[in-house]
């Protein structure tokens, strides 16, 4: 592995190259209609989710087999989460939250396959998801409560002189929500993949004697699998929290 020219150049690691967006077919320039690898992996994610849910619920037997059991487990998990965090009147919004959860979790886990691509590691993708949540939650709040939705920023339990200060802070924290919501997911995915790539480059340079980097890669890979699930969970539960704020703006 470590030939003389490479040794002279020193250790060259390009951990961010895996996030390059390029057209799948041909080497042409990236234009708005070109079918990029992001689009391809988002389509694969979508097909994976559809196959998973449709095949899992095909038989609809009273005694579920293993596949159906997994699908029912995920369904019940997300439904309970919506009901516990956002309340019973948030259940009409359950289909969207389930969709977002399945998309994020499939995209995260499929991105862990070597040589694949993670759409959720791009802020453009996660910002679209987060902005959808942000805008629709704001609209839902104003539709349900009218101007009473602004009571979210006017904390009536605080002492009166403190309320304007708190209102400024609340407004700021409200508008920083889509930023933190999107960057949390993208940042976690990007950092994990870059870390795996760095350890992989160590292993590549050391050649056959690379026991330590290989053990490290395995450990980091297990951690990343955990992070993939936890970040999908966190993304969904924060959606529920924001939805709760829109449905019940009084603290």
């Amino acid at each position: 592995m470590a030939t003389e020219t490479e040794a002279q150049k020193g250790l060259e690691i390009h951990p961010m190259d895996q996030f390059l967006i390029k057209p799948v077919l041909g080497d042409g320039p990236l234009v708005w209609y070109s079918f990029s690898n992001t689009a391809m992996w988002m389509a694969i994610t979508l097909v994976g989710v559809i196959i998973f849910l449709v095949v899992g619920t095909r038989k609809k037997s009273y005694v579920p087999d293993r596949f159906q059991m997994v699908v029912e487990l995920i369904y019940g998990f997300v439904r309970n989460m919506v009901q516990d965090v956002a309340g019973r009147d948030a259940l009409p919004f359950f289909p969207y939250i389930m969709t977002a959860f399945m998309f994020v979790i499939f995209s995260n886990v499929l991105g862990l396959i070597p040589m694949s691509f993670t759409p959720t590691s791009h802020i453009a993708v996660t910002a679209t998801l987060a902005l959808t949540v942000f805008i629709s939650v704001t609209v839902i709040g104003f539709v349900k409560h009218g101007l009473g939705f602004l009571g979210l920023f006017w904390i009536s339990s605080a002492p009166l002189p403190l309320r304007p200060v708190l209102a400024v802070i609340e407004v700021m924290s409200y508008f920083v929500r889509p930023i933190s919501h999107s960057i949390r997911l993208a940042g976690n995915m990007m950092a994990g993949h870059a870390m795996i790539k760095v350890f992989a480059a160590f292993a590549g340079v050391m050649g056959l004697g690379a026991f330590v980097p290989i053990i490290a890669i395995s450990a980091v890979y297990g951690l990343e699998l955990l992070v993939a699930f936890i970040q999908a969970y966190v993304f969904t539960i924060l959606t529920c929290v924001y939805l709760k704020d829109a449905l019940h703006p009084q603290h």
Partner: protein
Amino acid sequence: MEGDLNTMGALIGAGLACTGMGGAAIGVGHVAGNYLAGALRNPSAAQSQTAMLFIGIAFAEAFGIFSFLVALLLMFAL
């Protein structure tokens, strides 16, 4: 070594921005440790508060991710 002063400053800044992630680590550890302490005192209430644990971890972690983002911007977007 080649390179200019701007790149050097940006890379030093990126390294300094990464210290912010240590603060996030402290915050996440604080949340998880306090959750465990509370859960060991009252194990029957622990199950219902797992969602709060993850929300707290997510909020604490967000600011560490912000500093990571600043580092990335300095390295790749400047």
